[in-house]
């Protein structure tokens, strides 16, 4: 068998989902018995059959990718519950296997996949999509590019309506239906507290999480996921701020961005200039603007 054909044959078996008891399936990807599929390419030895040797790799693959999902999406796991999250992760990875050299990108397609498969979250679909978006934004903000920022003093001459302002590449802007920032912070705090906790304590934590998810009510929020001193923070912003920042991010000139941001505002006309000035001061102080 040629190299490419052999690798394709082995990879199909390695990436095939495990059984419920975390063993390799008895049926191969080609529908034939896995024993003969494995025996075709892999030698047995005096301790292990071809099936058992292939199974080592099959199990390692799934343990690795599922661990990565658990690490990257603890919030979604809290929303769906541990078992459902694991089943969903298996389905997602089967549909969207990694196409990147790094596991960091494994969840890149999860939001769009979840939208196409609402059965996994059911009634909690909006919540599941929101928390997935937040967790992916967190990953992007953590190691996204940063450029020398412009401070408030650099912006003092930027009153021209035609001027363009660039946002830091790591800055993520989200419009969400649920206040999932609070939920994610709570989940993370729990994880830190219970790293070395007893089984009883972990059960209690699980119940607490179910309650936290159940009591979460829809409440539209706008969020900037950003970075200060290499740590990621979630900052709630006003709808107007979100719209202005999105417009700037899309490359709109300053004047047009402000106009778009204030188009549906409830802020009194006489207070708008002061509000806009304050927002720009805050954003500049946070280092969100950088050179074009």
């Amino acid at each position, binding site marked *: 068998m040629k*190299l490419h054909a052999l690798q*394709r044959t082995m990879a199909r078996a390695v*990436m095939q989902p495990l059984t419920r008891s975390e063993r390799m399936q008895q049926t191969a990807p080609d529908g034939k018995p896995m024993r003969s599929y494995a025996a075709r390419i892999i030698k047995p030895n005096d301790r292990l059959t071809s099936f058992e040797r292939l199974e080592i790799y099959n199990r390692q*693959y799934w343990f*690795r990718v599922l661990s990565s999902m658990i690490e990257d999406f603890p919030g979604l796991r809290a929303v769906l519950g541990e078992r459902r999250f694991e089943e969903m992760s298996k389905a997602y990875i089967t549909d969207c296997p990694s196409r990147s050299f*790094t596991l960091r990108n494994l969840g890149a397609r999860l939001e769009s996949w979840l939208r196409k498969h609402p059965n996994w979250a059911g009634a909690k679909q909006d919540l599941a999509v929101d928390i997935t978006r937040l967790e992916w934004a967190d990953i992007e903000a953590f190691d996204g590019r940063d450029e020398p920022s412009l401070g408030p003093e650099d912006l003092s001459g930027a009153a021209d309506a035609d001027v363009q302002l660039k946002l830091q590449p790591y800055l993520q802007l989200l419009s969400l239906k649920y206040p999932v920032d609070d939920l994610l912070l709570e989940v993370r705090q729990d994880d830190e507290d219970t790293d070395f906790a007893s089984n009883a304590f972990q059960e209690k934590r699980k119940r607490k999480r179910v309650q936290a998810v159940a009591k979460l009510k829809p409440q539209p929020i706008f969020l900037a996921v950003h970075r200060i001193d290499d740590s990621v923070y979630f900052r709630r912003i006003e709808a107007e701020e979100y719209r202005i920042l999105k417009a700037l991010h899309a490359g709109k000139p300053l004047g047009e961005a402000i106009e778009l941001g204030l188009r549906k505002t409830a802020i009194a006309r006489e207070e708008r200039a002061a509000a806009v000035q304050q927002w720009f001061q805050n954003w500049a102080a946070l280092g969100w603007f950088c050179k074009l």
Partner: protein
Amino acid sequence: MPANRFNGFTEYGIGIGLRAPHYNHILTRKPVCDWFEIISENFMIDGGRPLHILDQILEQYKVVQHGVSMYFGSAEKANREHLRRLKELVKRTKTPWLSDHLCWGSVDGRYTHDLLPMPYTFEAAKLTAQKVREVRDFLEVPLAVENVSSYAEFHVSEMTEWDFLNEVVERADCGILLDVNNIYVSSQNHSFNPFDYVNGVPAERVAQIHIAGHSKYRKYILDTHDHPVIDPVWKLYERAIQRVGHTATLLEWDDSIPSFQEVHDEAMKADRFLSATLLATAV
């Protein structure tokens, strides 16, 4: 022999794998350590904390890059985005040499994120060597390929693992990162004499050595990097050092990571073997 064209003519001693749980200790206590090995993929990013930590480490320590997903043995072309990011990192670290595994792990653009074993065939050796050459030419840095632990062998294999390694490195004219723990693990899983392997590699091509711990199961051994190095692996290391001389040595500890001091103490056990070779050379 230790300083050779495959490790950039360097004379590095004992190093440790740079891992996140030790960042704070290293940056605040500044422990003595000859060099650190980084996993390239952890730093092939656009910005943020990992790169800022790396820059601080680079100010004070020597750093060598080690990769886990180049997949020299995959029967598909190298990922251009991977190469571009890797080259950026090489410029940042100025690594004197760079290593990755003699294995495959992706097919048709899908990644398993595992170090899958090669079929030891001439066709595979030729393709792998060609890819090693292409990567080295692009990165413009000496390359060393590392032997992996394996749990399966293929019917199509035409030679031993060490003959395959030799075939690849001769064709590619590259170095070897000799992992003596991996040799031990595979020898137990495939019932061969690990000393035949150590004695069978071209000593003049060994750029670096890896040592590590592993986990023993009832029917096989798994390369887990979560234990101290066991005596039989030290014996292989001793033999390797006798053959290749005082060579840059790195202790890998990737899971259940203990304190920096504990990892460092374990790594420094290699010093008695390295010192013996220096003594022999002096005499």
